Each structure stands twice: as C-alpha cells, then as structure tokens.
C-alpha cells in the first residue's frame, strides 16, 4: 500500500524512479588497460586513452561485459545479444574526450525486475527498465586553489553500470529498500562492492508527486546522491517542496537538482532550458557488441544463489521467519555463515545467536562477519554444547564473550574453566534435598499450593551450584519432592 503524504489541501502520492550507477569490479578500465583501483596519486592511473590524447582508441574490456551480463541475469533481465556503444557529447574538464562512451539506443541489458521487502513484511516488485555500460568521468577538485579547479583523471574511464528503474517506487522507504536490494544482489555476484561512501555506488533520484489516480507529474532529477540516508532525506525534502509549489497554484519545472546534506535541501543545478543537448550517436571507434546465447547461458549457470532464492530456502528448509531470513540473507557472507552453522543444528537457535550475540559484538567492534573472532565453526561448537546440555544458555553467553576475547573454542573454555553443567541427577538431588531441609517454611508454602514459590527454590539450587546445575533437571526434582 502506497503511503500518502498529507498536504494542506489533500493527499499526495510521491512517484520515484532511480538511476543507480554501480562501479564494476574489474582490474582495468572499460576501454583502457589502466587500473581501476580506488585512491592513488593524481593522474597515476591514467593511460593515454583515458586522457584522450590525439589518436587514441578505445578497446572494450571483456570483464566489464561479463559483469554487466551477470548483473542483468541477477535482476531477471533480458540480455540483448547485440548492443551498441554511443557517444554522449558534452564539455566538462573532467571529461577528457569531450564525450562519454555509453550505451543509448541498444543497451546490453533490457527489462528486468527486483523484489523489495517492505517494512510491513510484504514484498513489491520494482521493474528495471535497462542496464547499460558507460565510462566514469574524472574528478574535479575545487578546494585546492582559490581560482582554479584541479583535474584528476584516475577515475576517468572506470566501468560503470547504470541501472535504470521504472518509476515504480511510492515512498522513500521503497526507494531505500530498492537500492539496498540492488546493492545486496551486486555484492552477492561480486559485480560491485556497493560502497556508497567511496562512490562505487550512487544514485540519481527522479521524484514527482501527484494526486492519487492522476497521471504522472513533472519530475525533477536529483543528481549523485551517495548514501541511503541522503536518498531518504532528498526524496522527502523534494516531495514536500513540490507539494508546496503545487498547492500554491504553481507548476513544477523539469529540472536537475542537487541534494545538499548540510542544509537538508535540494537546489537547482540546471533547468530544462539549459539542459544538455548530448548529440548521442553510435561510437564509430567501436563495433557493435555481439554476444552468443551460449555465453549468456554459461554465465547464468555460474551465478551464485541470490538473496531471494536463499531467503526462500531459509524459510522453507530451516523454518525461519521471513524477517529473520531477510536479515540473514542481506549480505552474502552472513548467509554463508548461517548456512554453515545451521546445517544439522537447530536453525532458529542458530539464527538467534547470529542476529543477537554475534551481530551485537560485530557492531560494537565495527567488524565484518568475515573478520569475526568467533568463526562459524566455533559458534557451531558453542551451540552444540548447549544442545548436549553441557552448559546452560546463560553460561553460553559467558562462554561466547570469552570466545570473542580469546578466539578459543567453546569446548576448551568450558573445560579449562570448569563451566560444565552438573547433569548427574544424584549430585543435583543431594543439593536439592539440602536446600529443602534448610528452608522448611518455604517448602510448606509450595506444598500449600503456591507453585510460584518453586522459582525461589530453583534460584537457591542454582546459586548453590554456581549456575552449573541443569535447570531443567533441578526443576523436575523440586516439583517431584515438593508435591502436595
């Protein structure tokens, strides 16, 4: 259900489409052999091709093509066996050729779809319009000199995929969920590291508003938003800005805007009148790209299990709740971790340990799951000790903490610190008898019908055993001995 925004004169529906730019993981650039790594000395990762020296020519990177096709397949899209590279012409100092090589009329990937999870537990399909390959531009740095901008072309020519959605989102939440899902998919297939801070993933956000049921309103495009938080804030600001204009009898101008996080507002970058005339035409330096179906099929077969399929499996096979499954599949490493612990163990218990103790500790120490001092194997070992009643759940938390600090196995810790539960019924019975004898008044109370008072006895026994008695056994014994 679309959430509506309240204006002073009625309800408004916000309509959002996204163009996500994702930097492809590849060793070299889209059309040159310079490396595509992040962060280097100015112009150190630049070839003569990237600097558009006279006479230089582009040659397409096969890895960029492979990643685009895999991404297309991962979003259930049509792969266009013939695609064409086109030049998008405009002048900017960080665009050395005076044009960006992109794809226009015939992109490598056509229509597809991404399913997003809604906060209410439901799901929604967001259609993908297309995915195309293009070159990134260089970087202009404006704050190094009072009257000059400095140009660094290290990023110039790096492979980007532009993934264009249909205007299917109806709230900032949906837009954020869509980007998060896309990011998750890209990271699953190792096509993009999804790092929005470094700019390896960023979004152009198209926002319009309308009265429910009306045709689409005029949209504004907010360029280059580089965090999920900013996407949410930019949409909310922009939607309210447009509503205010419309409610005051104004019209929306189709324009390009920038989001300013410091002021939490969008501001005009350029209006439609001075919009670029990009003069797209097929790049005569590059022949059309023809792919074979067999190649596409092979890539499809080689894709890993994707988050949606994995989520379904976690629910179906492990009996997890949809919520827990969603949380566990969001990152491929987490899903892998869960999979390896949950195999032949109580999956719900495993899920609780991961989303509870493990996530809490990872977050506190700012670690990724791959760097966790408690590996999947070790967490499994801990859970096994609980299952065999060697330790209690409470002791387990203590053991986990020690595992986190030392990196040791649960078993080692339990043994060396004598934390095993007392499971021997005879041993427990001696202690139970002793406690009952020492507290006749309380015993009578229980016998008199106050079954709640039995909890007090459990506590006493646990205290007497330093928590090592099996609480289940203690409970059973007490009930038996204090029967009315």
């Amino acid at each position, binding site marked *: 259900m679309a959430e509506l925004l309240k204006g002073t004169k009625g309800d408004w529906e916000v309509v959002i489409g996204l163009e996500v730019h994702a930097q492809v993981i590849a060793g070299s650039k889209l059309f040159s052999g310079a490396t595509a790594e992040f962060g280097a000395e100015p112009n150190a990762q630049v070839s003569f091709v990237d600097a558009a020296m006279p006479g230089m020519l582009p040659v397409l990177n096969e890895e960029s093509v492979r990643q685009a096709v895999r991404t297309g397949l991962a979003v259930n899209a049509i792969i266009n066996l013939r695609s064409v590279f086109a030049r998008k012409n405009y002048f900017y100092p960080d665009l050395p050729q005076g044009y960006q090589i992109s794809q226009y009329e015939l992109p490598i990937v056509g229509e597809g779809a991404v399913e997003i999870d809604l906060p209410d537990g439901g799901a929604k399909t967001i259609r993908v319009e297309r995915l195309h390959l293009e070159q990134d531009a260089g970087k202009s740095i404006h704050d190094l000199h009072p009257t000059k*901008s400095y140009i660094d072309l290290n990023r110039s020519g790096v492979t980007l995929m532009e993934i264009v959605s249909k205007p299917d989102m109806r709230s900032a939440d949906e837009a954020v969920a869509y980007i998060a899902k896309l990011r998750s998919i890209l990271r699953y297939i190792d096509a993009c590291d999804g790092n929005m801070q470094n700019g390896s993933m960023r979004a152009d956000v198209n926002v319009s508003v309308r009265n429910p049921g009306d045709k689409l309103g005029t949209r504004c495009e907010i360029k280059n938003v580089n965090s999920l938080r900013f996407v949410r804030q930019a949409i909310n600001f922009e939607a309210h800005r447009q509503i205010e204009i419309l409610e005051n009898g104004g019209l929306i101008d189709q324009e390009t805007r920038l989001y300013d996080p410091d002021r939490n507002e969008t501001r005009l970058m350029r209006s439609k009148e001075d919009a670029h005339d990009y003069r797209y035409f097929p790049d005569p330096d590059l022949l059309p790209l023809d792919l074979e179906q067999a190649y596409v099929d092979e890539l499809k077969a080689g894709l890993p299990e994707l988050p949606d399929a994995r989520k379904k499996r976690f629910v179906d096979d492990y009996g997890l709740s949809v919520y827990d499954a969603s949380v566990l599949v969001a990152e491929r490493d987490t899903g892998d971790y869960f999979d390896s612990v949950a195999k032949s163990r109580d999956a719900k218990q495993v899920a609780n340990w991961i989303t509870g103790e493990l996530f809490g500790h990872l977050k506190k120490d700012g670690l990724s799951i791959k760097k966790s001092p408690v590996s999947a194997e070790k967490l499994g070992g801990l859970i096994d000790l609980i299952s065999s009643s060697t330790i209690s759940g409470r002791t387990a938390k203590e053991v986990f903490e020690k595992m986190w600090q030392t990196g040791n196995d649960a078993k080692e810790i339990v043994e060396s610190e004598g934390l095993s539960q007392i499971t021997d019924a005879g041993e427990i019975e001696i202690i139970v008898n002793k406690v009952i004898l020492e507290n006749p008044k309380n015993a009578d109370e229980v016998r008199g019908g106050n079954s709640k008072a039995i909890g007090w006895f459990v506590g006493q026994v646990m205290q007497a055993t330093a928590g090592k008695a099996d609480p289940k056994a203690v409970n059973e014994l007490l009930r038996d001995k204090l029967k009315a």
Partner: protein
Amino acid sequence: MSIDHKIIQKIALLARIKVSAEEREELASELTNIFDWVEELDKVDTNDIEPMTSVVQASASLRKDNPNDGGYPERITANAPEAVEHFFTVPKVVE
C-alpha cells in the same frame, strides 16, 4: 533549409566555439547553402533501410582484463598548458 544566426549561436554554444557577430552572418549563409545542397538526400527512399554503423562487417573485439597501462602521470601532464603536481588545472568551476 535556412539556417539563421540564432541557430548558429546555439550550435556555437554546443560546440564551444566563440563566433563573432560578423562570422555568425557568414556562417549562416554558408551553412544554408550547404544544407540546401544536402537536401538532395530527401530524394532517396530509405524506408526499411538500416543505418550503417560500420563498414566493417564484424563485431567488437574484446580485451582481456589486464591492468597493463597507466602509471606515468608525468607523461600524462607533459603537454599540459597548465598543471600542478600532476593535476591539470582550469579556471575554477562553480557548480
């Protein structure tokens, strides 16, 4: 096809070429003549004809993903009209 000085002004802006008022008039008349001549093409029936994208009947050749180029910033900026510490510099861009 008449090309007036307004169109010339627009093209000059797109092409980033300064054109004086005098040149504008000259160019307008030259380009008008050229496009009158080009109008000949309207006589060719091009229905159902594919536009040529390349005379080479082949498809794109792909390059192996080997990082084997770059790493020579001094050569990249060697011919620059203005460069500072391997950055190119331009008049400040205001966004």
